[in-house]
């Protein structure tokens, strides 16, 4: 069904929802960056007025991209897997964090105002972590969560957004897998409720969501969609790139083109890893121990032998990523690491998961100090392809 939500009701709605949910929404900070913040930390300071003034919602009048992708809500940059302390006899007591380190506490998370590209990315990371050997930590943090999409009518980063080419936006379509999307219209939002879970969510919230005319709203949404697609001026031949990547790098014309592109990227990349940290679907991590008896540098207190096992984001562009203790490193050559980054997203994931894991958010380009990014790569690979 379709509903309408007036903008002036937003802050009240979020505060109301925060009784049951840990509400995470895009807020603009004093530097102008938009980040996903927990409503509790915002509301403490200024209640409804502060919420309304800092909230960055609305795909037309306040179309803003989250600085870092929402994956960090379920897969933080650094998290403790468990803590250990010696209990004598050479054995350690192992204690799991059990969500104690989760700012949301025990409440399920409501991600309110996620862009369609980031939402598609969450579907992908969710599948990756939860299917086939469920990842305990991702699963614990994501348990019971829900996402409300804030679709884009105007692209937040016109120089970098290419969702319409990647097939992840700018609006969701009925038949896609989602619960609720907001589409800015007039002084508020069309609320497109697409699943029974979404209907359950809005029921009881009649004070905020007013039923809208089904036919008229569907017609208007279609109009907005056409306008929004037209507004994404950046178009790349995403499908063409996937076709080219299917071929073996040794064969045919691409055999000459791809290695040259990888070599140039390898030469220009400064291996800072920004593209991987900013990528909403990059999920690689490293694991290390921090203890008061083995670590060279530690902030842990001295005393009985104790420590923690930590996992942190890692990335395939780093030379140490695949280096083994013996010194053997199958990706010692920077060329191979450049190749890996692009082939993983555009060549292997389409085979393994049925679609590319590039969602066209453009962050790898906007965040790159030397102007490399998936967008540029796709453009170079498909040079000469017909429009």
């Amino acid at each position, binding site marked *: 069904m379709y509903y309408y939500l007036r903008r002036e009701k937003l802050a009240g709605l979020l505060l109301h929802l925060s009784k049951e949910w840990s509400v995470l929404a895009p807020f603009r900070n004093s530097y102008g960056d938009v980040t996903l913040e927990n409503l509790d930390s915002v509301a403490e300071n200024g209640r409804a007025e502060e919420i309304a003034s800092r909230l960055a919602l609305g795909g037309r009048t306040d179309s803003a991209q989250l600085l870092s992708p929402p994956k960090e809500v379920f897969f933080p940059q650094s998290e403790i*897997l*468990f803590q*250990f302390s010696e209990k004598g*006899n*050479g*054995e*350690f007591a*192992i204690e*799991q964090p059990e969500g104690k380190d989760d700012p949301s506490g025990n409440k399920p998370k409501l991600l309110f105002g996620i862009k369609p590209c980031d939402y598609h990315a969450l579907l992908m990371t969710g599948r*990756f*972590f939860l299917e*086939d*050997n*469920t*990842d*305990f*930590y991702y*699963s*614990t943090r994501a348990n019971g969560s829900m996402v409300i999409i804030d679709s884009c009518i105007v692209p937040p980063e016109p120089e970098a957004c290419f969702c319409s080419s990647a097939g992840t936006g700018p609006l969701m379509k009925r038949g896609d897998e989602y619960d609720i999307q907001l589409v800015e219209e007039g002084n508020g939002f069309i609320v497109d409720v697409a699943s029974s879970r979404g209907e359950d969510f809005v029921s009881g919230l009649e004070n905020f969501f007013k039923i809208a005319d089904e036919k008229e709203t569907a017609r208007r949404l279609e109009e907005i969609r056409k306008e929004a697609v037209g507004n994404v001026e950046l178009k790349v031949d995403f499908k063409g790139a996937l076709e080219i990547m299917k071929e*073996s*790098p040794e064969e045919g014309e691409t055999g000459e083109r791809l290695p040259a592109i990888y070599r140039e990227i390898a030469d220009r990349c400064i291996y800072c890893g920004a593209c991987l940290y900013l990528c909403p679907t990059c*999920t*690689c*991590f*490293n*694991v*290390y*121990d921090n*203890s008061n*008896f*083995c*670590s060279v540098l530690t902030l842990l207190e001295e005393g009985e*032998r104790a*420590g923690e*096992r930590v*996992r942190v984001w*890692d990335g*395939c562009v780093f030379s140490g*990523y*695949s*280096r*083994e*203790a*013996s010194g*053997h490193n*199958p*990706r010692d050559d920077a060329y*191979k690491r450049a190749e*890996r980054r692009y*082939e*993983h997203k555009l*060549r*292997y*994931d389409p*085979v*393994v998961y049925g679609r590319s894991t590039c969602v066209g958010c453009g962050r790898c380009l906007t965040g790159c100090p030397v102007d490399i990014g998936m967008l540029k790569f796709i453009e170079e690979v498909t040079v000469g392809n017909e429009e």
Partner: protein
Amino acid sequence: MRNDYIPYPARIVSARDETYDTKTFRLKFTEPSVAEDFNFKQGQFLEVSLLGRGEAPISICSSPLEREYFELNIRSVGSLTGAICRLKEGDILYVRGPYGNSFPFKEVKGRDLVFIAGGIGLAPLRGLIQMVLKNKKDFGNVSILYGAKSPEDLCFRDELEQWSEVEGTSVYQTVDRASDGWNGRVGLVTELYEAAGIEEGAGEMSNTTAFLCGPPVMIRFAARKLKACGFKPGNIYVTLERYMKCGIGKCGHCNIGGVFVCVDGPVFSWEHVEGFTEDF
């Protein structure tokens, strides 16, 4: 919900020096329920921790038929394995797993088997060799081809001797560099092929299955030569190693092209590996 990242304490029952830098640890989980539930298949590996120091994937080198303990063969190469190799009987390691797929066993009954190992690469094959030799009547001829850098680098020397005494089983050894007192062969492991009846132009080896483990460069040469000697790629099994952090297909480190060594491997048929577009 089960948390795959939590390791369990296992006590070192015995620690045997295999070479100057390699030890074989016999272990048993301290909690009876964990020990009871612990089942593994030939070719699988464990994530082994020294808490505070770190964790690494180590293949199980004992036979799954042995229920009382499991064994790990560990070479001191880095900070973690160096510290593990300083442990003694009675000390504790933390262990989780088993992970990965396994070597075919029932599927290769009735066939001749060739095991080709380089250095510590004998460890992942040892459990399977023990299983096969315990059920030798179900298999054809067994050849074990083993190479190491020097005589001092050869592991499981007593066992190699015992294996060679089993009927229908031959053991061939070679080293890259001889030292005083070495009367055996000097040369690459592939130079043992002829003695084991593996020759170019001798026709198709349709009733023989080969199992390989060793350094990547050895695996590549050994597998290619097997192919040249009439082995179908589908009858060559290799077990691969890769830097790993999770063992369950999440951390990304062991990716080769579209596969994870930890869950899609570590055992691969050469038919599969030949198609890899990345080095291993």
